[in-house]
């Protein structure tokens, strides 16, 4: 999965820029499938992108059955030929994971770049990482346990 750790994000927007250039061959934040949402005055930056949900609301609401999972990467892919541009997916996605192309008025979303997400390659602070959910889960657990471990280590060594 495309894992996001907002606390590492520095807000540089390289992910957006690279995404749009890679997919659309143009530099335009509006065309990027990923977007860094910012609260500048508080210093909070959160990259937002499709989470490739297990029960994808976009798939459920799509009247044309145009959104389907790619078996290899697990990405939800929009079939351009089937999409009629009704934008129900845009309305229902809880993450704003789906964008609308100005010209075609049809929708587009993160396709995980066939398993090699360009945004991840550009993310120096590693706020974006491409890894499986179990690895992410183990990492998160370790981070959560770290504080406790320091306390424990201290306690054990003093005894």
């Amino acid at each position, binding site marked *: 999965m495309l894992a996001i750790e907002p606390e590492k994000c*520095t807000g*540089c927007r390289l992910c957006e820029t690279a995404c749009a250039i*890679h997919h659309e061959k143009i*530099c335009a934040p509006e065309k990027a499938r990923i977007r860094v949402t910012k609260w500048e005055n508080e210093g909070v930056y959160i990259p937002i992108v499709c989470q490739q949900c297990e029960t994808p609301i976009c798939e459920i609401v799509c009247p044309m059955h145009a959104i389907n999972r790619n078996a290899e990467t697990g990405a939800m892919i929009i079939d351009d030929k089937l999409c009629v541009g009704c934008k129900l997916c845009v309305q229902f996605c809880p993450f704003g994971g789906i964008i609308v192309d100005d010209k075609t008025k049809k929708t587009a979303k993160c396709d995980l770049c066939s398993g090699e997400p360009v945004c991840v390659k*550009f993310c120096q602070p590693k706020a974006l990482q491409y890894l499986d959910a179990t690895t992410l889960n183990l990492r998160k657990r370790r981070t959560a346990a770290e504080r406790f471990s320091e306390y424990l280590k201290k306690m054990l060594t003093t005894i």
Partner: protein
Amino acid sequence: MVFNRKIAHINLSNGKISQKIVPKALRAQYLGGRGIDMHLLYKHMNPKINPLSPENLFIVGVGFLSGIPCLGSGRCDIAAKSPLTGAVGDSNIGGFFAPELRFAGFDHLVITGKAKKPVYLLATDDEITIKDASHIWGEDTFEAQTLLRRDEDDENIKSLVIGLAGENLVKFANVRTGMKNSAGRTGMGCIMGSKNLKAIAARGTIPVKFTHPDELIEYCMQMNDMITSTRWSKAQSRWGTMIIYSNTNTTGLLRTRNFQLNRLEDGQDLEPENIDRYSIGTSGCYGCSVHCRHRYVLREGPFAPLFGEGPEYTSLGAFGTMVGCKKMETILIANHLVNKYGLDTLETGGLIAWSMELFENGILNEKTTDGLRLEWGNEEAVFDLIQRIAHREGFGDILADGFGGAIAKIGKDSEYYAIQVKGMSNLHSDERPTPSFALGIATSTRGADHLRSRPAIDMYGLPEDTLKEIYGGPVADDYNSYDGKSRMVWWQELLYAVTDSIGTCKFQTVFCAVHAPKWEEFSKLIQLATGMEFQKSHLMQIGERICTIERLFNLREGFTRKDDNLPERYYKEPTPIGLPVARNKKIDKEKFKKMLDEYYELHGWDKDGVPKQETLKKLSLDNTLLNLS
């Protein structure tokens, strides 16, 4: 496409706005950003005007490569005739404004005249509107940006704003964007204030098409790897520019107590590691993989709660070493205050440090400073004076005019203590042990300034063969030496003129690492992004053209060789402390003159620093080029 972006001419007096595509011929000669700004400044400005008159131009320029995903490509160049120096006014700013202006369809704005009441400009897709800013006038630089976003009901509005300092025509008021980014030097915020222009907001959705997008992406990835693999960049990513302090304070390359000492004794609290007590993470400008500034939170004390970004190495000097303050917290508060009011951190600190020395030697006293005890390390006085400068209150009003105005009011005997060139304060580096840096600040077209050349590569103990390979001629590996240093300064000036014109970050060039991007990499990036082909020699010529047109501007304003000089103290007082490499060093006047001669020669200027006819011809700076608009 890059080539469909426009120049907009905006007259605030009569509200007239015109637009035209940036001529490709101008791109070939100047690329964009600082280059084109300087052309416009020289061409459209009448000589000897009062910088605060409506006639002055306020020019905004987006870098030629703005929007590429590497090297911090979001930089913007701001130019005018400087109210502080009367010379070239030029300041570069990062953040996210430049790409947004480019997405709105504009690469350059040339603003003239003066609005009758406070206004802001809004650039949206191919359109520029002048809007009422009465409700924003008086707001600080953070709140002003929030209000603009709210006004336009769009969180993605990016803006350049001024604070109280700009409104009050403080001569070193800056222009700001975001929490931290500032076009700090030469008083560009004062020019905005003089035009009743509170802000320039941009929001655009016009895509930029690069010529070879797939190869560009690959190459940009290589560029990011190239820069993040340098030790300098790794250290910067972690601690920001403050990392320089560890080195310079240990060695003795930091002016302390104005210019009395060259290192801060007991200055441990200013070591960059101490920012960790306040940092919640780092922050980067557009397209930057280095992210050199901290986001910090101050949770206690009279100014808390406070969120800020930075501080830079320069602020450690401005509100630390130069004024004798030794606490990180002082820096964080002062940094926040100058950002809030929109003051150049460096000029503010330089002037306060100077006042403190004048206070110590009796040229100033409590009567003249309105009761402020300007003693070394008095942080309350520093905070107080920052606010008085921004409000132009009492003694703050005197300092608000910069060194030129303040010396005229305080008296001629104060001039000796002013560490400035062409009326602009130097930063807190002490250049007496490093002749290359000394030459760089003396020749900088915008007044004492390290970012025009920053010739630091000889400080890394590199073999002379390597230096020769980079600079194309012999350069001594000893940084105390004068040999070949003119070549370093000249070469770096050309490189940075081009860096400022393509709109990438200087930190991501040979700023502190020899194997960082330079000419060849710039050529390739330009080719992939725009299709234009430039060899290294062409780019160097563009750099030369930019430096020379700035020189022509200054000559036209009455600056001559005598202004490419250092404060007398550099020649008279040797550095008192520091490591042997930095101790007991002063600048040798004769050797300095020789360096200056060599430097002029390399630029193709005569002994008086006037560009030779053949140089002007070679650079097409005769009339043909100046007719381009």
